[in-house]
Each structure stands twice: as C-alpha cells, then as structure tokens.
C-alpha cells in the first residue's frame, strides 16, 4: 500500500472543442435548402449538435450526434423538423479513420473525452479496439451485484507509490496510476511537450522528456519531470539529471525494440539541433544498445552513476519485451532500479520501421504476467514498481494491464490523440505532423495552443480516472493497488465462455 | 392668378376632377391623337398622354400633348425617367412649358424589358421622386439640378403617381408622403378595383394628413371583358383585381361584359366621390376612349364645371 496521500485536488473539467472547424464523428448531418430557420433543431437536441448559423442553423457539433438510434426519442430532429430538411448519414470518413488497434471508435471517443471530460454517449466503443487479441479480447469479470453507482467515488484511491524499495530515497506517490511517457523535443513540438507536462502537473503525476534534451521551457515543472538518459545521450547533462526527481534509463523502446532511436533530418531544426548538440538537418540516430552496457553488471554501474549524480532521484529503467523479459526485469531490480517500465510493441509515437513494430519482441499483454509471476516467485514483486507501456489506449487497457501485473502504466499515444492526432502514421515524413503535434516546423507547431492542449489532456485523463474508479467499484476494491496481478478478474474471450464464469463479462 | 392649367383650376376650386388618358399611336400620324382629343373634349378636365407606355415605342408624349393643346384640351405630359437622363428630362420640361403644356406627371415608367425594345439600356438616371423634386425646383426656385439659374422657369402643375395596391402595403402611404414632400401637387393612382384596399390606403393617407396636401385622383379603368379582368389580375404588374370582380364579369354573357365593365366603373366612381380626400378620378380607358364620355355622363360628372 502506498503511504496515504494527502487528498489531491484534481482539476476541473472545462470544455475544449476541436481545433478544426469540423470535428469528426460517426454521423454527419446535412440541412438542406428547405430549412426555414425555425430553430427547432437547436432547441430539441440535448447533445448540442446544432448551433445558430449566419443564415441557417448549422450542425456544427454533429460529432455529438447519436445517429439513427436517436430515432426512438421524441426529440429526434430528423422526424421533428417541420420542413424535413435534416438528413443524418454515416460519416464516410469513419470507415477509413484509425486502424485495427486505434479504431475510429476509439479515436472519436478519445476526442470526445478530451473535449468534454466525459464518457462518450454516442454509442462508440471506448473500451477496446479491433486487434483481435490481447487487451481487445480481454474482458473484466464483474461480480453480479451492482456496485457501479456514482456514490463514494472519492473513497476509492487511484494513487500508487513509485518507490517501493527499502532505500532511503524519497517516497513518491502519484494520485493516478500513470505517468506520461517520453516524447522527445524534436519528435513532438514544444507545445505538445508543454501541454503534456502541464497536464501531468495538474494531475499530480510525471511526464518524461524523452531523449531530446531538457528544453528550458520545462524548468518551471522540474518536480514533475522524468528526464531520460537514452543510448544517444542527446541533451543529457549533469545539471539536467540533478533537476528532477526521477531519472529514466531507456534501453529500448517497444515500437522499435532492438533498434536505436531515430530522428529524420527534416525534423532536426536549429532549435532541435541546439538542444541535442547536433548538426541542423542531419538525421540523428541513437545507437542500440548502450555501448557501455553489455551485462547486468554494466547496467548496475549506470544506475549507480545516476544515483551518485542525484542522491534523491528514483531510477527507472525502460526496457522492451524480449523472450527473457522476466530476466531483464530481475536484472534491473538487482542493479538498483526503483521502477521498471516494460514497453510493449504497440506503442511508440515517433517513426519506426514497420517490420520492427510488427514483429520484434512480444506484446505487452504476454510480458506483464510473465514478469509479475517471475517476480512473485523471486519474492521481490513488492520491492519494485512495474509500469506497463506500449499500447495502452484506454482506461480499460490501463485497468487490464494492472490486473495483469503492472502497478501502473505509462502513456503517450493517447495524449496525442487527445490533441487530435488522427493516426495517419506520417509523423516522420517531410515537415512532420500535418496536424501540428509531432513536428518542429514552426508553421505547423502554430496550429495548436498550449492552454488548449493542456486542457484536452487533462480532460481525457479525468475521464479515464472516472472509468478506473468505476471498474474498481464494480470489483469491490477500494484502491487500485488491490487490482495488481488479479488475473482472476480477467477473461480472454477465446478461452473462456460466459457460462463458465462467476459474474458478468464486461460488454463490448 | 388664373393659371393655365385647367386641371389645377378645377381642383383648386374644389371640384371633383376628371382626367382621362390618351395613348399616342405607334406611328407618325397626328390624326389619331386629334380624333381621340375630339372624343374627350368637354368631358374631361385634362388628358394624360402616356410616355412610351410599357416600353413600347410610340409617338412622343410631348408632341402628342402639343397636338391636343391645339385641339383645345388641357394635356398632362407624362414623363418617365426610363428613357432620358437628367439633361434630357430638364430640357424637355423647359420645352414643354415653352410650348404651353401646363401639367406634368412624373413617373419612373414600366421597365424596358416589357416592351418591344428589351435590349434598350434603361436610363433611370433619376427616379420619379427625384424628378418631381427637380421639376418643382425648376419651377419654384428657377434652378436646375446643380443650382444653375434658369432665365425663365417653367410653369407646370406637378403630378405623380401612386399605387395603393403594390407591396409593401404599409409603406405605400409613406411613399406618397415622400412624393408630396418632393413637391407633387396632384396624384393619380393605379386602377382601382379593390375598394377595400383602396380605402385602407386612404385611411393611412388621411392619417398622415396627405389628403390635405395633395389632390388625389383615383384611377379608373373600365373592364372590356372577363378575360381582360383576368389578364390584368395575373399579368399586369401592380394591379389588384379581386376575384369578385372577375366573377362578376364572368357572370354575364360575353356581349354584355362591356356594359358590365362600365357599370363597375360607375360604381367605383360613385364610391370615390364619397371618399374623403379623393379629389377626382383619372380614367384610363385603354384603347377605348369612346367609352369615356358615356362613363362620365353615367357617373353624373357631366357637364364639367367652367373654371
């Protein structure tokens, strides 16, 4: 159990609409010329789909539309419109949005949460994707008695402790079981980076710098920053290590396990180059692995070096998931790490070869139970914090990862989706992200505002926290720490049938 | 001072004035005008000569007025702003006065697209209200637009038109007021078939006190047939022929329809005579001038007063 945290003041929700003129939703509404501007639709729709327009009402927020299922309601605009001017159609874009893991439904529901801080009401599947395995086939088994009401939400703790070792270093409790993973300056814009950091501050958690240096804009937030020491050592300096409360060693990243980091030349702008002490316009490779680490002993030297440099910092080690991921974790523990972050192969926000993303190393869903069980057997499970990352897309993924053995999770892609990443997968090309998120191009960076970005991320995570508490309540738990390693509350659809279990399978 | 305008004299003396309309021919023959003048002479106080009405090319209004003047009638020169710019208009006004014409009716005119010269450039340099104002300034102040002095001002009784039946109805009386303010001294209205509406309009006119500032002559057009009634109702811009009138025309056999038309006209004239603030009638018997004497006699407006 973590030390009882002082009551944390979570931020308020403030609605933050899309940066773009037309938000994307499952349905599209068209109002034809026969509209007589009576304004009834504006009055009727409880979801606020319609807004007053210059001349006629506009379906400005049709991403809130619940579509044809609304037809049973007496406020169904299509039926009620006196001029029959309204048509609802499925947005053709929806069939091409997203991919198997981040489906159109997941994207739209994440955007919804980021905009409103609430669980989507449009009938979107906001819990699972369509990958056909892993998280997407895992379901919670809830006891039949209903504990899902809204009462007593604040009595459920979502806090976790990051330093579980017996050393003298400070305890760090975060009020939510996640922190935000490393995305380097260069791979994402400074606005994106600051939005994430500021959201982390608001949520009382941390955000990692990634491997691109420690831009001075971040200094105000030192206490909530994890700085990364990666194989390229880009931007790593003694003073940056001294500034923070957690230092992260990045051995590998799940998107390109076994390969180094890579920033294409186009993205190495003068600012990025300066930050990384590199040459403008030339591609930057981080080697793999640390050229000074060829054994657990070497690894320990590294950890000791950090501990020496900053006597108060916790050390986190970020690794991918090879066949012997359990051994790697144990090795890290003995080398003195406080946190081991297991980065599965579905995450990653920067550019990576498709072949690596798809084929190298095992999915996080396999790695977590393997590691958890092994650490239990070694008797050291409660001495180390296991953080899962790489493909945690939803509050449900987060809860599942914890049930499979993680203490908490580390997130990245979801933040970008909250910032309206559309997952076109072109972060790496040309000037970078056309939507101004993963780019260093000045013009494109200008597509986003800091306050907007911060709020969107806060909203999404507040909605996540709400969902996590609901899950815990249904499971009869008072703290997220009770969920760790509870394989028994999960079922895999391919292997377990409804009739074989006690309780109810979570729908979707 | 005795003015040269018979119409003005009649009105000033408080008589119920009668004017009629005379359409010039589509040719250069003066005889047509003369014969029309002969029919009307003695029955009406003044004769309006239309100015290329409906945009169809006809003998000029000014020339026809001169011909009628010679016949001893008191012509009203109609001037549309459609075909002439301010230079031509002012020059024609001076010319008309010099030739002894004493009445002018200022109007914008039917749009050229209705006539036989739809490719013509519509001038509309000034509009009817502006024309009224301009004539008034010429007459009363002896200046033309821009302020240049005239060596001799024109002497004209200035009229304008009003259509109580066009939309927006509420504005119609206001617009009349505007014409009065611009300087109109008499008003001829669009043909009246819908007396209800006309009376509503007159109520507003009276409310504004306009009936005391300007002489209003109600427009009368005797119907020749039920077909004409229907045509006017549907095809003629700014015309309001109620269904009951059309039905009434239809209810009699074809050969009696002309007579029925006259009857309706008489009834309308009687009604107008009763109406406070109506100072006369303007009879527009379209290509049917011979009906005018009959109508005037039957409406007990004959003989005309000597003034």
């Amino acid at each position, binding site marked *: 159990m973590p030390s009882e945290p002082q009551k944390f003041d979570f931020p308020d929700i403030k609605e933050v609409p899309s940066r*773009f*003129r*037309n938000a994307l939703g499952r349905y*599209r509404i068209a109002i034809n010329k026969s509209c007589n501007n009576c304004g009834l639709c504006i009055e009727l729709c409880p979801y606020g789909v319609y807004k007053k327009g210059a001349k006629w009402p506009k379906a400005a927020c049709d991403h809130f539309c619940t579509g044809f299922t609304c037809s049973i309601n007496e406020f169904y605009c299509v039926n009620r419109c006196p001029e029959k001017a309204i048509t609802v159609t499925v947005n053709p*874009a929806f069939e*091409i949005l*997203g*991919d*198997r*893991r981040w489906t159109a439904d997941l994207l739209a529901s994440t955007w919804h949460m980021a905009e409103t801080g609430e669980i989507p009401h449009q009938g979107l599947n906001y819990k699972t994707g369509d990958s*056909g395995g892993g998280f997407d*086939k*895992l379901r919670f088994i809830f006891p039949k008695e209903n504990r899902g009401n809204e009462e007593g939400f604040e009595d459920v703790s979502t806090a976790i402790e990051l330093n579980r070792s017996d050393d003298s270093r400070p305890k760090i409790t975060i009020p939510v079981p996640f922190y935000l993973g490393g995305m380097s300056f260069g791979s994402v814009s400074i606005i994106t980076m600051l939005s994430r950091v500021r959201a982390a501050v608001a949520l009382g958690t941390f955000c990692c710098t990634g491997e691109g240096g420690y831009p001075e804009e971040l200094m105000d937030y030192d206490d909530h920053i994890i700085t990364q020491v990666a194989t390229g050592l880009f931007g790593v300096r003694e003073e940056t290590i001294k500034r923070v409360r957690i230092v992260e060693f990045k051995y590998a990243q799940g*998107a390109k396990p*076994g*390969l*180094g980091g890579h920033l294409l030349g186009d993205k190495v702008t003068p600012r990025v180059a300066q930050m990384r002490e590199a040459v403008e316009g030339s591609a930057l490779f981080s*080697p*793999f*692995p640390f050229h000074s680490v060829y054994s657990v002993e070497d690894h320990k030297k590294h950890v000791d070096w950090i501990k020496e440099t900053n006597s108060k910092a916790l050390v986190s080690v970020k*690794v991918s998931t*090879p*066949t*012997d991921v359990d*051994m790697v974790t144990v090795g890290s523990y003995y080398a003195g790490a406080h946190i081991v972050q297991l980065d599965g*192969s*579905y995450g*990653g926000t920067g*550019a*990576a*070869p*498709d*072949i*690596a993303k*798809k*084929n190298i*190393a*095992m999915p996080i*869903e*396999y790695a977590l*139970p*393997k590691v958890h069980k092994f650490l239990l057997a070694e008797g050291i499970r409660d001495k180390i914090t296991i953080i899962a990352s*790489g493909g945690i897309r939803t509050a449900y993924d987060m809860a599942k990862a914890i049930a499979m053995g993680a203490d908490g999770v580390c997130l990245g892609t979801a933040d970008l989706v909250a910032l309206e*990443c*559309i*997952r*076109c*997968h*072109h972060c790496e090309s*040309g*000037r970078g*992200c*056309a939507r101004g998120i*993963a780019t260093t191009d000045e013009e494109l960076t200008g597509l986003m505002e800091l306050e907007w970005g911060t709020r969107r991320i806060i909203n999404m995570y507040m909605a996540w926290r709400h969902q996590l508490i609901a899950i815990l309540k249904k499971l009869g738990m008072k703290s997220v720490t009770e969920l760790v390693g509870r*394989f*028994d509350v*999960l*079922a*895999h659809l391919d292997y*377990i049938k409804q009739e074989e279990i006690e309780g109810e399978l979570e729908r979707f | 001072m005795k003015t040269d305008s018979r119409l003005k004299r009649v009105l000033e003396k408080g008589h119920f004035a009668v004017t009629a309309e005379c359409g010039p021919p589509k040719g250069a023959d003066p005889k047509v005008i003369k014969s029309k003048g002969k029919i009307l002479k003695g029955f009406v106080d003044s004769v309006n000569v239309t100015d290329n009405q409906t945009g169809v090319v006809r003998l000029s209004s000014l020339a026809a007025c001169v011909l009628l003047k010679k016949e001893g009638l008191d012509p009203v020169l109609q001037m549309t702003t459609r075909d002439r710019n301010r230079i031509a208009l002012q020059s024609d006004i001076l010319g008309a006065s010099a030739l002894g014409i004493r009445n002018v009716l200022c109007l914008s005119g039917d749009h050229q697209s209705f006539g036989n010269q739809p490719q013509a450039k519509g001038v509309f340099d000034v509009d009817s209200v502006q024309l009224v104002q301009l004539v008034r300034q010429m007459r009363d102040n002896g200046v033309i637009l821009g302020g240049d002095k005239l060596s001799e001002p024109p002497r004209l009784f200035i009229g304008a038109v009003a259509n109580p039946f066009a939309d927006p109805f509420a504005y119609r009386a206001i617009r009349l007021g505007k014409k009065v303010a611009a300087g109109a001294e008499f008003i001829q209205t669009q043909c009246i078939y819908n007396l209800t509406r006309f009376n509503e309009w007159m109520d507003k006119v009276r409310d504004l006190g306009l009936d005391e500032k300007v002489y209003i002559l109600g427009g009368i057009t005797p119907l020749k047939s039920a077909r004409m009634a229907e045509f006017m109702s549907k095809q003629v811009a700014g015309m309001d022929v109620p269904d009951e009138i059309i039905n009434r025309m239809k209810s009699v056999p074809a050969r009696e329809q002309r007579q029925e038309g006259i009857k309706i006209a008489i009834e309308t004239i009687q009604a107008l005579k009763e109406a406070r603030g109506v100072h006369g009638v303007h009879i527009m018997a379209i290509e049917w001038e011979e009906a005018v004497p009959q109508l005037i006699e039957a409406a007990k407006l004959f003989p005309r007063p000597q003034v």
Partner: protein
Amino acid sequence: MPPKYNIHTSPVPNRFQSITKSGVIAWEEGCLKCARCVKKECVYKVYEKRSLDTRQMLDTLDSECQDCFRCVQNCPNRLIQKGLNPTYKVLGDHYWTPEIISSLWFQAETGRIPVSGGGYGGPFSGPGFDAMWTDMSEIVRPTRDGIHGREYISTNVDLGRKLMFLELGPDGSIVSPAPPLVEIPLPVIFDILPWSPPREKINLSLLECAQSLGTFTVVRQSDLTPDLEKYLPHIIVHVDGKPENLPPELIKRLRMIEIPDSENVMAVQAMLKEENPQLVVIIRMPLNSNASERALQLTGQGAEVLHLYADEYGLEEVDQPLFIKERVKEIHLRLVEEGVRDQITLIASGGIAMAEHMAKLIICGADALTIDIPLLVAMECRVCRRCKEGIACPVEIDQVDPAWGSARIRNLMAGWHNQLLEIMGAMGMREVRRLRGEMGRAMFFEDLEKEIFATMGKRG
C-alpha cells in the same frame, strides 16, 4: 572485414497511379474558393499537384493524399469528404492483402523500407507468419554490433552441399574434393513467375536485376532464348523438358540448374554433374506430409540443394495442407535430428510476400528462399491475375522497360535487405547463416497464448 554489401537505390516513379486505401469524395459544387483555401494549405501539396490519369480515370488526389484530414475538417462548406476506396478493398486476395501490395509498391518506388509513426496499427497476430515474433537483445544478452554495425551484418548464404568433415588420405591430403558452392549476397532468388503477361520484357527485368544484385533468376528451359545469353551466370535453368535436350555447352556455362524431383532425380543430377562438375544442382520438390522423409532420403543420396515449394499462399497442394513455415520447421528439425542438416541447402518458396517472411522462414530452417509474386508487384502488379485469365494486364507489365523493371525490383530488394538487417540487428546477430533455424530466438503465438491467456479468469 568483409566488403560491405549495399544495394544502391534511387526512386523509380510509378507508371500508373497506385491504388490507395481512401479516396477523396469531393463535391466541387458549392466551393467557396476561400482565400485561405484548405486545398492551398495542404501540407503535402496534394491539390497543387492534382492531375487526372485518363487511362485509369484516376485522380492524383487519391494516391498522393496522406490522410491528415485537415482539408476535410477545415473546409467551411464541408465539401471534401474522404471514404474507403472500394478498389483498394478488392486488391489482391486474402493472402496478398492490399496492405502487403501497397507496402511492396512503396518499397519498389522509393527503395526505402516502410517506416511510419504513431505505433503499430495492425492486428494482434494472425495466421501463418503473423503468429510469430522475433526476439531482441537487451541488457542480459546484448549485441556487440548494434545499429551502427549493421553494414557489417552479413546476409550472404552458400548454396550447395557441404561436407560434414574432411576425409584425409594417409598422407594428410584431402581426398574428398569440396563440392561446388555458390554464394549469393542475400538469401533471395527470383523464381519462375506463377503467372504473368507475356514475359519477354519481364524476364529481362528480372535477369538484369539478379545480375546487379549478384543473385539468380530461375528461367524455364523453354523460355531460354539466345538474347538471354549474357545473363547465363545468373540464370538457374529450370529443366522442364528432357534434360538430354539441354545442349552440353549450355550446361558447361551454367553455375546452377534446377531439376524437378522424380524417381530418377539423382541420376539426372549425376548426368548433369558429369557434364559440368562445378554445377550446383537444385532439386525442386513439393512440400507435403512426405517432404521431410523425402528430404532426408535425398540428403542421404547426395543431393546438394533442395528447393521446397508451396503454392502462392504458402500452402501445400494437398487436401489438408500445412503452412510453409510449419513444414519447413518440421523438415529442418528432422534433418537436425538425423544429424545431416548442415550437409544440404534448403531453399523454400511459396507465399513469401514480405521481408519479415524471409526472416521468419530462415528462423524456421530455410537457408534461402525464392520469391515470385513480389517481383511482379514491384512492377506495379495488382495481383488481379487477369493475365492468368488471358485478359490484358491493367498496368501493362508486359510493356515495361527492363531498365525500369529491374530498378524497381532492385529497390524492393534493397528494402528487404535492409529489413532483414533490422531484424538481425535487433537480435544482435551478424550472420544470416546463423539466423537459420534459431527458433529459440523467436516467439510463437500458440505457445504464448497457452502460457498466458488460457489460464486467466481462474481463481487462485
């Protein structure tokens, strides 16, 4: 230091518009022609480059668009919509999927390996090659040559029979002469195409490319024409007629030859080798449930190279077929078990569609492999198989300029080579020869599912 093997690439443009997943459904009517039009703001300048290809009636909007959706989302009149391109959906078939085909097109066009941002968006796993992950090295088993040493990772393989030991004469001299070996710099050979439009120009494209890469193209005996003579060192003649009909002077000039398996296949091999002792003979044999037995038998009889083939979907041509990777695994393990694996070279073919298949098949026990359909796809083939039905090729592959064709294939092979290096680099391996049969450095879906998920939901 071995010399670096590096395939040079250079972009080779498409002749036809490629078919992409989404299409613009743009209603032009009602365009407001905004001063700051979303079309002008396109980061990729798609609208500026817009043109129409009238052969296909295809708008470049579709093939150039990168789906950032900014125009869709910002057009004030919502005139631009994007939808699924149904033509993309029907590209290829269940195995040669639209995703595979477009990835191959990309590699052939650019010579680059597919790289994308934003994490992996595909399915969790799948049948066949997708039910397998390769390993990586980390802390407890690090590599000595990471990404920067990748140029020194060798992808060379030897084709031919290897001696298990040297026989020495009483005087210490070697009595067993080493059998001939052919070394190719990457474990890929171009195979006979299962179908194609008339292939005069196609064959020239393949041969030109095989020559420049240092590998081989299998050419049917019946397809051999005098103008191919200059490519003989890179031709594997597939004997589809009578071996006796092969001119001896041709046999003498060949380095490799392929003969179909038959009862007297060893006799044919002997005959050919008599004509040219330096010739490496490949025996082409189908994969089926007898294959491991037959492979063992042929190895015992002195076969040099076995070319194990499955159909275009990687399946055996029998009633209850096994997937190529399973059968190759079985054969490899059988030969290992019998202690003869290293004597013989196994080439596998059938259903190899992506670079990862190459790596995975090698892990499962093949020394090298041959590819066919990807070669056509490199030349813009849509795997519609119209040519097979006698319909004209929609992308006129029969008309390609061999220089264009070979440059495209070369680009594709560069992509595959680089991706093989990625996999091996991540594993910390320096030799593709060592990758062969390294099943311990791979993870299999079935094993992991059994270990992790099948036990979930149980109390305690």
